[in-house]
């Protein structure tokens, strides 16, 4: 029984004798080249896209437009702030002229009948 197993094992162990080397399917290099082309890094793809003249020009235009918009909107808001200040001053002056504003606590208390 033991001999039977040993014979089988020996036969199996020697089945790798005279093994021939396997080679890949034809056109291995073509498939490899195609894979290398597809697996370009994301940064390569981004840099090649950004360095296109049309894309670069569009990016510069976009930056200029954003800058102009920011400058314009900030100057407009500062102008409106100045206007609101002068309006407030006028209102105070009028109130003061017609004695509508109590300037201290004593006056405020004594205005009550």
């Amino acid at each position: 029984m033991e001999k039977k197993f040993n014979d089988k094992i020996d036969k199996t162990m020697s089945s790798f004798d005279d093994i021939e080397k396997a080679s890949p399917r034809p056109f291995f290099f073509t498939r490899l080249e195609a894979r290398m082309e597809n697996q370009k890094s994301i940064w390569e793809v981004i840099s090649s896209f950004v360095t296109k003249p049309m894309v670069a020009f569009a990016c510069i235009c976009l930056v200029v437009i954003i800058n102009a918009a920011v400058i314009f909107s900030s100057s407009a808001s500062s102008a409106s702030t100045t206007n609101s200040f002068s309006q407030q001053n006028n209102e105070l002056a009028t109130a003061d002229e017609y004695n509508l504003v109590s300037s201290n606590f004593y006056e405020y208390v004594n205005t009550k009948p």
Partner: protein
Amino acid sequence: MNERELIALLKKKDREAFKIVVETWQGMVYNTALGLLQSMEDAEDTAQEVFMQVYESISSFKEESKFSTWLYRITVSKALDHLRKKKRKKRFAFIQSLYGKNDGQMIEPPDFFHPGIKMENKENAAILFKAVDQLPVNQKTAFILNKTENLTYREIAEIMESSESAVDALLQRAKKNLQKILKEYYQKLD
């Protein structure tokens, strides 16, 4: 063109030199990967990854060892990485099946028939490949390099960055383990 000139050109990213390198060593890389992975698709995939790495990292090749030794090292490491990923996927699929998330049943991989084995040895070789797959990684690597690539102990030692005596010990242990696995297999069959 000799090997040195070829490598010098490859370091300059010369596409023609790369083509020559691939065509010269593709059989060696593929056959090694096939022995370790036991799947033609995985071996092709790994062989492609090996040459992609060669192209990317040829500048790190210091020419202290033979180019083929460096290539074998990359192939073995890539193939073992591939095996690890495959095992991780298998484990994940098994856990999913436990939670009933994977409706498909676990499919046992089919027997692997190496294209370079003689017809009369095919069945026995498939059994031996299954047994080789159960060996520890180092023993498996040494056994495959010795049997399918016909490398000497010295060449295997250079690839595995160890000594000849260590390789000898690894191969002895591999043979003993294989005999044990095969004995259990045939006893179960009987």
